[in-house]
Structure formats: C-alpha cells, structure tokens
C-alpha cells in the first residue's frame, strides 16, 4: 500500500511537533510505502534539517507556506473573473451568519474551496491572486455583506490585509503541484498528521482522485488557533474572520475524512463538537517506547522514600507555583519530604517562570542541614535530565516515590504516561486527558488547588503499600494502552479498514493511454457491501442487527 503522509511543521524535520510519532509509525509499518508531503512551519525549520529517512519512505516533498516566494504568472482576465467568483463564495461561506444552516454553509465552503483548487490546477498558481487586490476587495465585500458577523462589519483596511495574508498562507496547499498522477493521485490513502492546513492536500486529493483521507489529531488544530490568536494578538475582526475560516475548514476536514483518529477523548470531544461523525472516530492513544522504562518499572524498590518528583517542560501552564505551595503543606505533615523538579524551560517565558519558581522555592524553604557542622541544601531541587542526579529520563522518575503533575493546561500528559510506565504512583490535576490516561491507577485532584494536591501527596507518602499497588496497576495499564506496538497496530488496522471499505478506483491504462480491460480483477469491485446479505438488510432479525453493529 502507498500511504501519502501529510505533515505540517513535523516529520521529517528535526524537532517537529509530531516528528517522533511519525518516525515510529513509518518505521513500524515497513510493509507499506510512504510518500511524505510536508508543509514547513517556519523559517527556522529550514536550517534544522531532516531526521534520517528509512527506505520505505520513497519520496519527500516540501512546501513553504510562510514564504512570500514567487507569485507566479498573473491570472488572465477569465482566470481573474473565476477567482473573484470562487474566492468571494468562499468568503461568503466564512462570513455566513451563525444561525444559518450548518450543512448548507459547509457545502458552500467546500464547493468554493474545490473550485479554487480546480482553478489553481488549471492556471498553474494562485499564490499571487490570493494576495492581490482582487482578494482584498472580495474580502471587503464579504465583510460588508448583510448577515456577516458584527466584528467582520467593523473590519478596517489593516484587518482586511492581515486576514488576506493569513488566508493566502493557509490556502497555499491549493497551488502546490501535489495532485498529479505522479504524486498524491497515485497513493492509496492520505494520512494527515494534523487537521487544518496539513489536511488540506488530503481533501484536494480526495476531491481530484478519490483518495480516502485519514486524519490524526493529537492536539486539535482549531483549539490551537483559538489559543494562538488570543485577544491581544490581533483586532477582533481579524480574530473573528480567521476563527470562522478555521472552523469551516475543520468542519470540512472532519466531514470528508474517512476516519478520524484523535489522540485522546479530549480531542475527540472537540472533533465531535465541530461536526465529526461519531461513527467514524477511533481514539488512538499516542504510543511511547516502553522498553527504556522497563528496568525502572520492574524495580519499584529503588525509589527514595519521601521524594516527590515532577518531570516536564517548564512553562507557566504547568503551574509549578501551586506545586511549591502544595509542597509547603506536605512539609508540615512530613518534615523529611523532598521535591525534585526535573525539566528544561521552554522559551524566554519559561526561563522567566523558572527563575520565579526558584525564587519562590528559596523563600518558602530555607536550606537545611543534618547537623550543626554539615553543609545544608534546599529540600526543593531544580535539575535537568542529564545532570548527575538524573542521568536519563527513567532515572529521573526512578528517584521519586510519588510523581506529581500540577498542570492547569495539558493535552495528552506525556510525563504522566511515562511515570505510569515506570510503575510510580502519581498525583495529578484533573486537566486535559489526565483522567482518561490515569484510569483508576493514581490520584486526581482539581487544578489550582494546592491543598488538595498536598493532601493526596501526603496520603501516598504515608502508605507505601498503596503506592506499590497503584504503581503496579499504572504500569500494567500503560503497557496495555500506550505502547508503541499498540499505536502502530491500531494504525495498521485502520489502514486496512479504509482500504477494504473505500479503495481508490483507478482505470488501468497502457502506455498509449488507452484503458486496459480486465487489468483489475472484477471481484475487487463487487457493488454494494458483500459482507452483509443485501437482500435481507431491512429485516428486523436481531442477529443481523448485531452484524450491522460489528461492521
């Protein structure tokens, strides 16, 4: 099978968001061929280079939506007229009133999108037209149309320009030459590794050549857009228009995708909310390498009693301040408790946050020593993976009797899953997919509640038996649900499911371009669903209803 793997800012670039997961997927499914189509996410990625590419990846094609680049040849008069019509229709769907019929708006948006794609295919490039004055004028007309949202009505010229620029970047996949017979038209299945712009080539391949689309979302792209375009980043009109555009695009992707695989039930809820059909969603948890945690996980006795460990990337959303306050409460009950914070700060904001946390720790906990003549140290230590106390990531977890997670924002809690692999008892805040990941194998407290966090930690610190029980259960659960093998097996199954339900129908042709009769065996195209007796489908027999359900 040939899989078209569509990525945005991830694989095959070093340090991409989804890079590790894609790499494992591609290596784990060596029996398939992969064509990687990557959208670069920013200028710095260009210099980062690629990860080593395994041989099953037959080709890698990249594009740079962020680069203004070559505008290409300008459209002719006819092309301009078509462009204005389709783009106006697209923007009309974006600015359509909220209370209108959702299906009708989705149809309008989809039709306009595919018409634009056909125009791009006919004329070569749309990049210039998407930034041209015609585009800005069409946007102004759509904003001033009756029924447009109030925020759009108030759009001023700079807002129009900003939205046009953003849309030109988001719609960049329309004008890529990826849909020919030698590219996406030749694959059996498109697998988009995130929603939004990355799934757009898949939508177009589906439109042009009927290639089925599978969309995997570990973090919901639409939600990320809402968070990135916060109130301070742009004018209300820009935010309203872009939010509407990305909402419509997400709805179109969810509507057209054959199967959606969210990474957690949190992502699943967002997808369902945006119009995804429940029957086509399969939650596939991200897989993690269990082997490197095996040694630590099988030796629960190496934990230091009375030590709490926090592991993760240091940023304000992780709420280390609450953790430190909770630890102050823990110290009142358990004077010998220690806290290890292992992690690296993310960006300048993270650096500042780390400095703030260090200062707070120094303020809350004075250095203390064994006796009068010993050198004291702080019960809270800040280290990184690789430091002498924690040479590797499993070692960082190994030291803790209890692993704590204090985030207020979390997608899929990777550090929690790693702690589970290590067989450690955990206390975490109830955010994101935490409850779903932990099941019943750890304690969960409300976020922003240091006292509850402290009480849960004390309860576990005082009860080694419970700790061991929870740790063992957590490890068993993690091995069952979050291993790499399970992840890859799930995708393998989904690939085969898609192939069996909606194979690409291609007409085989010979060298002269004439159709070859009997090139494809006839039984591959039995009309209807041959796993269920078609004639008996309507009958109310309970056995058959069961068969429907299984299908």
């Amino acid at each position: 099978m040939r899989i078209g793997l569509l990525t945005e800012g991830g694989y095959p670039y070093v340090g991409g968001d989804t890079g590790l997961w894609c790499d494992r997927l591609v290596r784990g499914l060596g029996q398939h061929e992969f064509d990687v189509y990557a959208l670069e996410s920013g200028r710095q990625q260009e210099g980062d280079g690629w990860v080593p590419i395994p041989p099953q990846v037959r080709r890698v094609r990249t594009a740079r939506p962020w680069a203004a680049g070559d505008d290409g040849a300008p459209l002719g008069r006819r092309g301009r007229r078509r462009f204005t019509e389709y783009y106006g229709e697209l923007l009309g769907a974006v600015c359509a009133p909220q209370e209108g019929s959702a299906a009708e708006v989705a149809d309008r948006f989809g039709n306009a999108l595919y018409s634009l794609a056909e125009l791009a295919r006919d004329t070569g490039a749309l990049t210039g037209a998407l930034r041209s004055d015609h585009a800005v004028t069409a946007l102004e007309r759509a904003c001033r149309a009756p029924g447009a949202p109030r925020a759009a009505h108030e759009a001023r010229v700079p807002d129009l320009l900003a939205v046009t620029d953003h849309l030109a970047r988001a719609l960049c996949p329309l004008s890529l030459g990826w849909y020919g017979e030698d590219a996406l038209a030749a694959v059996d299945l498109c697998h988009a590794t995130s929603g939004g712009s990355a799934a757009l080539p898949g939508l177009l391949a589906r439109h042009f050549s009927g290639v089925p689309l599978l969309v995997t979302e570990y973090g919901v792209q639409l939600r990320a857009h809402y968070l990135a375009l916060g109130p301070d980043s742009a004018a209300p009109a820009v935010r309203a228009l872009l939010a509407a555009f990305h909402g419509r695009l997400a709805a179109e992707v969810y509507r057209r995708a054959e199967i959606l695989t969210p990474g957690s039930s949190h992502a699943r809820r967002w997808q369902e909310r945006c119009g995804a059909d429940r029957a086509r969603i399969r939650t596939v948890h991200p897989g993690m390498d269990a082997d490197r945690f095996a040694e630590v996980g099988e030796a629960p006795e190496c934990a230091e009693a009375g030590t709490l460990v926090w592991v993760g990337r240091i940023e304000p959303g992780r709420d280390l301040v609450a953790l430190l306050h909770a630890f102050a409460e823990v110290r009142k009950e358990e004077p010998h408790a220690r806290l290890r914070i292992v992690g690296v700060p993310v960006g300048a904001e993270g650096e500042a946050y780390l400095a703030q946390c260090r200062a707070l720790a120094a303020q809350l906990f004075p250095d203390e020593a064994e006796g009068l003549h010993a050198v004291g140290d702080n019960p809270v230590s800040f280290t990184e993976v690789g430091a002498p106390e924690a040479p590797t990531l499993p070692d960082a977890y190994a030291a803790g009797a209890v692993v704590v997670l204090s985030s207020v924002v979390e997608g899929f809690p990777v550090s929690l899953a790693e702690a589970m692999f290590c067989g450690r008892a955990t206390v975490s805040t109830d955010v994101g997919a935490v409850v779903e990941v932990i099941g019943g194998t750890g304690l969960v407290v409300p976020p922003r509640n240091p006292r509850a966090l402290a009480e849960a930690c004390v309860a576990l610190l005082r009860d080694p038996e419970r700790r061991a029980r929870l740790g063992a259960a957590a490890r068993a659960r993690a091995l069952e649900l979050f291993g790499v093998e399970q992840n890859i097996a799930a995708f393998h199954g989904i690939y085969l499911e898609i192939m069996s339900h909606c194979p690409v129908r291609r007409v085989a042709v010979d060298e002269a371009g004439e159709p070859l009769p009997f090139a494809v065996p006839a039984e591959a195209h039995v009309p209807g669903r041959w796993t269920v007796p078609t004639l008996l489908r309507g009958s109310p027999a309970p056995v058959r209803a069961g068969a429907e359900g299984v299908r």
Partner: protein
Amino acid sequence: MRGVDRTGAGAVAASGASGTSGAETAPRRGAVDPVKALLHRHRELCERAVDPLEIAAGLEAHGFTDRSAARYRHRDVFSLAEELYARVPRDADPAPEPTFGPAPRIRTGWVLLTLLPGAVASGTVAGLRLGPGTARPLVALGGLLAVILAVRAALGRGPLAARPGAAPRPSAPVWTVCLLGYALLGDGLLDAVVSGGPDALPTGSPDGPWPAATAPVVALALACAPAAWCAHLLDLGARRRLAGSRGLEDFTSGARPLLLGVVALYLAALTGLLALTGAVLHEDPAYPQALTLGALLFLARLLTAHRHRHAPAVILGAAAAAEVAAPALVLSGRLPDCGFLAVPVTTPVDPLGVGAIPTLSCGCAALVLLAHALRTLTRASAHAPVGGPE
C-alpha cells in the same frame, strides 16, 4: 467517558476531604446563579471572545473540564461556553484603535548606502577631470563598475529594496544600465551621427567630437538618497492612511495625492541636484532628458519595491529600445534608398535638438508608469505588511 469521570471523582474523594469540599463551596459563593460568578471572573475572556468555541478554549486553558462544567449544571464545557457567550453584554465595548505593526525604521545602514552611488560618481568625475590623461580610460571603467555596484547595494536595503513576493526580472537592471548609458553618451552620439560622424571615440570630457554628459548622470546618482527618502515618506504616509481609512475606496482616494506628491518632491530634489552638478561641472544640466529619465527610474523602482515587477521591466525595455533605435535608424538611413528610415528621428530632432529623443521616450514611458502606479500603488494590497499575525 462516564466511567472515567467516576474513577476521577472517586480518586478525588479518596485523596482527602478538601478536594471535595472545594467543589462544594464554588457554587455556594455565587448564590443561585453560579454562572454569573464565573462570568464575572472571566469577564475579559468572555467579552473579547469572537465565538463560543473561543470561550471554551480559554476556559480549558484555565483548567476547566467537563467535570467542572457539571458544577455549573452544564453537560460539557462547550454548552457552558455557549451560555457565557450568550449572556455577556457586548454592546458597550469600544472598537480598539487599529494597530499596524511597527513603523518602518530609519536605519543608518540604508541612509549611508543611498549616499554611496553619488559619492562614487562624483569621485569618478573628479578623477576624470583632475587625473592625468593616460589614466582616464581606467578611471572611467573602474568608476562605471563602482557606480553600478554602489547602486545595487543602495537598492538592496531600505525603502527602495524589493519586497519578497514577485519573481525577479533580471532584464530590468540591464535596461536601466542602457538608459543611463544613453544619458551619458547618447546625445553626443546622436549629434555626431546626425551631422555625419562619429569620427572619434568618447573621451569622457564635455567638449570634443563625442561629448559625454556627466552632470545629469552624477545628479541621478546623487538622487538615490532623495529617492530613498521619498519612498520612505510614501511608506509612512501609506501606513497612516491604512490605519485611518475605513474602506479600500477610502484608502485609494487618500493615496493618490500622496503618490503624486512624493513623485513631485523627488523631481524637485532632482532639479536642485541637476542645477548643482551643472554649476559645479560647468556643463549643461540637460533638464528635460534628466528629469524624465529620473522620473522613469524612480517610478520603476517604486513599483518594483511594491511587488509589481512586470510592468517596470517591460516599460524600461521599451524606453531603452526606443533610445538605442534612434542612432541606429539614422545610421541605416545612410544606406542607399533607405533614407526614409531616418525620418522618424530627424522629424523631432531637427526642430527640438538631439535631446528630444530621450525626452520623448523617457517622458512617454514615465507617463505610462505613472498611470500604472496610480492604479496599483494606491491599492491597499500594495502596502500590505509582509508577515501577519500567526
């Protein structure tokens, strides 16, 4: 999902009393309407949100889950966000002043670089005038190359630099060099050709059988600096009008006088420089030829800088072709029975002098480009900043 919920709640209960007591106190504080208290706490988020999903995303970023939404008697965060979005008063919020990124800055780099072509050209002319006669060809050649490189450097940065986005046209610099070459030597050549010559190669001096007009060229090189400042003024004015205008029509009507004013300012500066170089070098400043050429080059550069590269390349090519064709036509008119070929050139040259050819060709080209610029550079899309919010 339900089962998972219960597990979480059970774990909370097992962790101690405070977790559950916190959950009970939150609604009590808000008396009968807990959502009102929530609305008050997240007032800014709710008031500035553009749709309910944004409130949902924001609430989740504050640690809200479906379990916490249940405390507000909602099934999930989405329906809670919808209620908040519906209930928040949003009539009173004033539209914020539009912000338009940082203004283009005046950097020493481009300010100094725009002075470079003028300095190099003046130095070359001084070398030609004052240096020994034997070194003149070398000085002239080196000076020409240095001026070309200096102009290239000056146009690489600052407000005259081409913004990324359009395919570069390699022909445009070639035509520019042709036009400048004609301004330097063309009038002398045409004069000599019309009167039967040329009999000698140019020496680089204003007097002789094939005189070189150095004053206009030096003035044009010096005019790189005012050109950059004028382009900067255009950018500043365009940004101000962009921020202030309500619609695209509004912007266009405001930008037209701005563009005309900038071109007029540049021509005024060029006139001053021509007068100065003419006086210093004791030469005829050749105002009509130099002013039309200056206007043509300035407009071509403005268009190129604003991502309209196609029209300037074509028009510059046409003007250069017209100028080069003039002496060629006169020369071919000397062939037997081909005298009619010289008629298009001699018709304007006889009454108006040899300066009529560059004045006419550059003037027509500049007018065409001005019309084009009035159509394209007055549109908002030409002044769009590179790189929007992301």
